[in-house]
C-alpha cells in the first residue's frame, strides 16, 4: 500500500484528532491525568481519552508489562482500528527497566507490538508526555508512524514472539 497516495486530508485529520486509549499498567498510569489538566491541556491538540479500543487511535502503555498483562494488551491492540499508534511510557517497556532481571517482566515491547514512540524516564514528567504526543504528530505528518502496517506485514513474526513469551520461552505446548 503506497504511503504517498493515502490522501493528505486523512493524515492531517488523524494527526489533529488523536484519541487515546489509556492502558494503565505499572506505575505510569498516574502520569496521564496531569497532562489533561489546565496546565498542560492535551485537548488543545484535539486529543482526548477514549473508553474502548474500537474508538481509539493511540494505545498508551504506561509501565512494566508482565506476561499476563501482555496477553490483554495484544488483545486490545488487535481490536483497535488502524491507523493505530502505540506510545509506551517509562524505561520498563524499553528494556525491562529496574525489573531487568525479573522472571516475569517482558523486556523489549517492540518485539511483540510495533511501538511508534518511546518515552524514556522512570515515569516521565507531563512535559515528557507532551513531547511524546508532539513527536507522534510529527511522525504522522511525515508519514513515518506506520507501526500498524508493520504489524500487518510481519504478523507471523509478532505472533511467534508473543507465543514464545506466553510460554515463558518454551515452544511446545499452547499458552494457557
Amino acid at each position, binding site marked *: 500500500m503506497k504511503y504517498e497516495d493515502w490522501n493528505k486530508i486523512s493524515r492531517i485529520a488523524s494527526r489533529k484528532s488523536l484519541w487515546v486509549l489509556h492502558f494503565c499498567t505499572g506505575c505510569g498510569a498516574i502520569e496521564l491525568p496531569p497532562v489533561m489538566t489546565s496546565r498542560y491541556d492535551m485537548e488543545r491538540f484535539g486529543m482526548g481519552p477514549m473508553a474502548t479500543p474500537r474508538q481509539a487511535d493511540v494505545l498508551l502503555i504506561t509501565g512494566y508489562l508482565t506476561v499476563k498483562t501482555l*496477553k490483554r494488551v495484544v488483545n486490545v491492540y488487535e481490536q483497535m482500528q488502524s491507523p493505530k499508534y502505540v506510545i509506551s511510557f517509562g524505561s520498563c517497556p524499553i528494556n525491562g527497566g529496574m525489573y531487568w532481571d525479573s522472571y516475569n517482566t517482558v523486556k523489549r515491547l517492540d518485539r511483540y507490538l510495533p511501538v511508534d514512540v518511546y518515552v524514556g524516564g522512570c515515569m516521565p514528567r507531563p512535559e515528557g508526555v507532551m513531547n511524546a504526543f508532539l513527536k507522534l504528530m510529527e511522525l504522522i505528518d511525515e508519514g513515518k508512524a506506520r507501526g500498524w502496517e508493520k504489524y500487518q506485514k510481519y504478523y507471523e513474526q509478532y505472533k511467534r514472539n508473543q507465543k514464545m513469551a506466553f510460554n515463558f520461552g518454551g515452544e511446545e505446548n499452547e499458552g494457557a
Partner: protein
Amino acid sequence: MLEFIFAALLIAAFVTLFIKSGRIAAIISLIASVMPLVAIMGWANEFGIKTISFGIENSMNFSIAGITMHLSITSFAWFFAVMIFSLLPPIFLFSYSFFEKNNGFFPFMLFLVTAVFGILLARDFLTLFFFWELMAASSFILVYIGRDKKAIMSYLAFSILSAVLILTGIALLYSQNNSLLFSEVVFNSDIVTVAALVLMIAGFAVKSALMPLHAWAPFVYSKADEPFVAFLSGGVSKVGYYGMFFVLFALPGAKILQQYFNSNIATYLLAVVGAISAFIGTLLAFMEDDLRKLLAYSSIAQLGYIAVGFGIGSSLAIAGALFQAFNHAFFKSVLFLAAGAVAYRTGKWKISELGGVGYKMPFTFMAALFAIFALAAIPITSGFAAKWLLYEAAVSNKYIFITPIMLIAGVGAFLYSFRVLYGVFLGENRHDDIKEAPLPMVAGMFMLVMPLIIFLIFPGYMLDMMHSALVNAGIGTISHTDYVIRTGMASYNTLAVVIGMMVSMIPAFLIYVLRKQKKVDFKDNFLAGEPYEFYGYISMHAANNFYKPIEDVIMPYLRRGALSFYTALYNIMGRISNALRKIYTGLSQDYTIYIIIFFFIIVGWLIW
C-alpha cells in the same frame, strides 16, 4: 350467499374433527377460511367501498326451535369483518407447519370463526348472544388444549361474567320495548336503558381486556397455542370492540348517555379507563420476563388506546380508534406468531433464556422488527397515523389528563419493544444450533406485515374503508386525500415523510458504501481485553431483569394490582359459599321446614 359461507365453515369444522394429521387439517381450514374473505371482498366492490348502507338486502333468516335469527351485512360489520378475516389465511398458513398432529386446534378454530362471523352479521340481540356463547365455548376449548389450570379457570370465569353482563343488558332492553330486532329497538333515556347500556359495554369490555377486567389475559395468552393466541388477541378482542362500537354508536347509545347525564361523563370514564389500561399495561409489560406475558400486557395497553378513541367520541377519535384496531390486529398477530416460531425452534419462552436468535432466524426477526416498529408507532409504519389521529382528537377536545398518559404509554412502548428485540433476537449469540423457521411460517408472518406497509404510504385508503362505517353511525368523517390527513389542528402528509426519508437516506448510504468493512464475530468484542480462550465461556447477555432500576422505583406503587383485587374477591366468594353450604345438612326434616317457610313467604307476599 351467507348460508353458503356458514355451511362451508361448519362442514370444514366437522371434517377436521376427525383428521389426525395436522397438515391436511391445516389445508382444509385454510381453504375454508378464505371463503368469508372472498365474500367480504365481493360485498366491497358490489356495494362500492363508500356506499355500503345500513340496508338489509343481503340478509338471511333461519330459525332454530321456533326463534328466527336475522343475519345481514352492514357497513360497520363489513369493516370489522375485513379486519378480522384477513388475519385467518396467514394464521392457518403458519399453523400448517406449527402442528404436526391435529390436537383439536383446527376444528374449534373454525367453530370460533363461524361464531365471530355470526356475531358480526347478527341483526338482533338473540343471534348476537347465541353466537357470543358459541365463540366463548369454542375459544374455551382452545384454551383448554393449553392444559394450564390457571388459564382455564380464569378464562372460564371471565367468559361467564361477560355472558351474564350481556344477557342482563339484553333482558333489560327487551323489557323496555319487547322486540329484539336492532332496527326496532327504540331508546328513551331512562335509568333502565342506561343500566342496560353500561352492562353491555362492560360485557364487551371483558373480551377486549380493558384494565379492571383484564386479569384473564396474561394467563391465557401465555399458556395457549401461539396461532390461537394470535387470533384471540388480534381478532377476537376486536369483536368485543365491535360490540362496543355497535352499542355506543350504531344504536345511538352515546347520545342516550349524553342526554341522561347531560354531560359526556360516561364516555369520558370509558376514555379514562382506556388510558389507565394503556399506561399500566405498558408499565407491567416492560418488567415481564416471559415473552408471551409481555406481549399480553402490551396487547392490553394497545387495546386501551381503542377504548380511549371510543370514549372521546369525536369523528377523529373513532377513526383513530378503528385505525389502531386494524393495526393492532396485524402487528400483534405477527408478534405472537414470531414468538411461536421462536418457541418452535428453541422451545423456550423466557427472554432471559433466549438471545441471539435473530442471527439464525433473520426473516422471523425482520417480520418481528417491522411489527415492533408498528407497535411503537414509528412514522415509518402505519402505526403512527392511528395514534396521531387519537392524539389530535384528545388535544382538540382539551382532555388534559388523558393525553399525557396516552403519550407516555406510547413512549413506554419503546421500552418493551427494545426489550423484545434485544432480549430475544439480538445480543450475544446463545443459540447457534437453530435453523430459520419453516417457509409456511415465514410466509404467514410476511403476509400479515404487508398491510402495515400499504397503509403507511396511503392512510387515505384506510379512511375510505372506514368512511361508510362512520357515516352510517352518524359520526362525521375526516377530510383526507390518499396520503394527507387534514384535521382542524394540523395535517399529516405521509408522502412527505416517505420522500423525506428517501432523500435523507442518501448521505447515510454513501458513507455505508464508500468505506468497505470487515465482519467481526462475537468472541472478539464482548470480552474486550480479556483473552477469550483463557477465560472460558461466560454468558454476557444482559437480558433478564433488564429494567431493574425502574422496577424498584415503580413496583411499590403497582403492588395493589388488579390481581390482588381478584384474589380478595375470590376469598370473599369462598367464605360466602361455605356459609351457604351449611344449609344443605342432608337431613330430610330440615328440607321440609325450608319448604314450609318458603310457602308462608309466598302467601304473605301475595296477600300484602
